[in-house]
């Protein structure tokens, strides 16, 4: 019996892949099970319906610590995890990003490492992930069409001399596929796709896993502790069921896929006399090296209408700044991806805490706005970390997570460059005004159980297997060695498919 903790891109995919190979799986998901019929074009209601809202604290000088101190990240607590909410950009890392340390060199204050494997090793798994997700622009699947917001991005990018501008590879059907319809350009992608055109494990991997007869998904089952035996192997988990009663589920293997805040928190909260620093933590790396991407947005006001909210939210992007160039004064690169929001969400997000005429005048131009989102590589810094709060406890009596992040000078240099380029892009096609928007609570959260060949440097090995505990795996973005400039989901899925293959092999050879 494999117990998978979490049902998002990592856990949901892993559950399907394992059960399809004939392995019995129990998925424990803290959130409730919803149906596509529960999704509505209502950002605020859907935020309340499926976000992870448990209390957290923040520290450090990052702007999110000021604008959203109680809710530093935006991930989901629901069957399907954050694939309910994600924008569905499904991008491969660039090859050099698997060699961050080698490519960028030693940068003061960072803990950057190369991944244990290179692009060639993961490429076949990317291929399978793209096929699973139905990624546009791969496997003969057409791209999604260009929206109004995209037309502005294209024109501005070309006016600025950019050439790598195009339609984003999206895990949103551009034509009917896998029993799901094509995108209807509804917008509201991040509020849950009402047409199920966007890939989410809620209605793809999870029901497919259940159909094998080997996978049981238990919703509203919040794992509190991973237990181990006297030999130091994990033996099961303790979870709180929907009524708050403690339950024990025994396990031959435990796979942790609870996202980059809860996964390290659970390892730390599972400390025992044998593992006083927490499970899988002989390296001391659990919770450290938290990355969340260099981010920010630019919205631009035009004289004529744009209606940016119509259509797939993130369907076009600019890749010209994604490669690494020493000449820009920072390591790594960034993407410019379309973004749009409904009026209430924009009002709440574009200028946190601001008010008055200048604030209101941007919203008065709402239907004349275009928008783009910056997503770039932030470098690993050991002191950026998830740790247990010393006093505050959750309703189960367990320490809550504190999320600490300080902006590294490299992050700030990249962000400044991106803000300037995005504004210039819009000004090149007639924007009368541009507005810099600070980062939102991150949905891309990575690095807090990082992968390394050497057990001293990381928590898990190249397959996501704990260096310390042979039958404990990490299956989410927390295993990322570095963040790259790309949205993390495709890589999480590729790693999960690969990990399932690895686990099945070990079990088949009685090595697990």
């Amino acid at each position: 019996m494999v117990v998978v903790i979490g049902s998002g891109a990592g856990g949901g995919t892993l559950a399907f892949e394992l059960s399809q190979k004939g392995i019995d799986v129990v998925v424990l998901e803290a959130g409730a099970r919803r149906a596509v019929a529960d999704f509505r074009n209502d950002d605020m209601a859907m935020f309340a319906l499926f976000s992870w809202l448990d209390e957290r604290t923040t520290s450090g000088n990052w702007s999110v610590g000021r604008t959203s101190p109680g809710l530093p990240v935006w991930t989901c607590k629901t069957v399907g995890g954050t694939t309910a909410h994600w924008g569905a950009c499904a991008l491969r890392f660039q090859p050099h990003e698997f060699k961050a340390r080698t490519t960028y060199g030693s940068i003061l204050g960072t803990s950057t490492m190369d991944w244990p494997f290179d692009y060639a090793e993961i490429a076949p798994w990317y291929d399978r992930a793209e096929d699973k997700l139905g990624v546009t622009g791969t496997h003969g699947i057409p791209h999604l069409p260009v929206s109004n917001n995209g037309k502005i991005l294209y024109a501005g990018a070309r006016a600025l001399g950019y050439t790598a501008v195009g339609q984003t590879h999206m895990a949103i059907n551009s034509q009917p596929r896998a029993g799901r319809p094509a995108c209807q350009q509804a917008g509201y992608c991040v509020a849950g796709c009402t047409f199920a055109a966007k890939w989410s494990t809620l209605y793809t991997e999870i029901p497919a896993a259940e159909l094998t007869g080997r996978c049981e998904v238990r919703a509203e089952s919040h794992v509190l502790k991973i237990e181990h035996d006297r030999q130091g192997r994990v033996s099961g988990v303790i979870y709180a069921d929907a009524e708050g009663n403690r339950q024990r589920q025994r396990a031959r293997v435990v796979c942790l896929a609870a996202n980059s805040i809860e996964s390290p928190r659970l390892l730390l909260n599972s400390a025992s006399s044998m593992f006083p620093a927490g499970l899988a933590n002989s390296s001391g790396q659990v919770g450290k090296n938290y990355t969340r991407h260099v981010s920010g947005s630019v919205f631009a006001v035009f004289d004529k209408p744009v209606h940016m909210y119509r259509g797939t939210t993130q369907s076009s992007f600019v890749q010209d700044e994604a490669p690494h160039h020493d000449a820009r004064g920072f390591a790594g690169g960034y993407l410019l991806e379309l973004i749009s929001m409904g009026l209430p969400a924009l009002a709440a997000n574009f200028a946190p805490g601001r008010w008055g005429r200048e604030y209101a005048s941007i919203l008065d131009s709402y239907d004349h706005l275009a928008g783009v989102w910056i997503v770039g590589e932030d470098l690993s810094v050991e002191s950026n970390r998830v740790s247990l709060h010393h006093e505050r406890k959750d309703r189960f009596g367990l320490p809550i997570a504190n999320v600490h992040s300080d902006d590294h000078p490299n992050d700030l240099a990249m962000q400044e460059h991106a803000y300037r380029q995005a504004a210039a892009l819009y000004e090149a096609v007639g924007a009368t005004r541009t507005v810099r928007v600070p980062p939102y609570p991150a949905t891309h959260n990575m690095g807090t159980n990082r992968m390394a060949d050497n057990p001293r440097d990381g928590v898990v090995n190249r397959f996501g297997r704990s260096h310390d505990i042979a039958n404990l795996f990490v299956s989410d973005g927390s295993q990322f060695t570095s963040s790259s400039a790309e949205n993390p989901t495709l890589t999480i899925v590729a790693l999960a498919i690969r990990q399932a293959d690895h686990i099945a092999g070990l079990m088949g050879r009685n090595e697990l």
Partner: protein
Amino acid sequence: MPLKPIRSDVGPTRRAFLRGSAAAAAAIAALPGSRLILGAGDAWAVELNAFTAEQGETLLRLLRDLFPHDHVADAFYANALAPLDDAASADAATTDLLVGGIADLDARAARIGGVRFADNPSEAARVAIIAAIEGSAFFTRVYGTCQIPFYNQADLWPRFGFEGPSSPFGGYLSRGFDDLDWL
């Protein structure tokens, strides 16, 4: 990808009772001694539980200065007071915070102009008063409680050119997602 982590109702729990056109009605009336704010010509009315009409009037003026959209009628701002009124009704400490903050605004206004906050005709003067209390518990509570409910009123969206939910109409696929033709 991101949105604002604010827990909010999907809109005010009570709505201004519209009696005919509320558009562009600049004048409101607070009936002394009552808990009723009336729109001009009795076009709409909002009844408050935790605040007097005069206090409600101060709050409404504050919301208009925080989120100033001249093309938006008072009734929409009055609607956004409902969650604040509900919070104050449910909790004495919140009542004290809000009533105290209102009194402070009016006292500051009286010192510079001899009239209540809502009666000072100078927007610049009112903005200066608000700037002086920015960051206070009162300011933070009003801002945090009313901002999203104000902008989350579907009836308001057409005034900003936002068409809102599209799935019930089949998305924007044949409704203009790529109709931009001026580039």
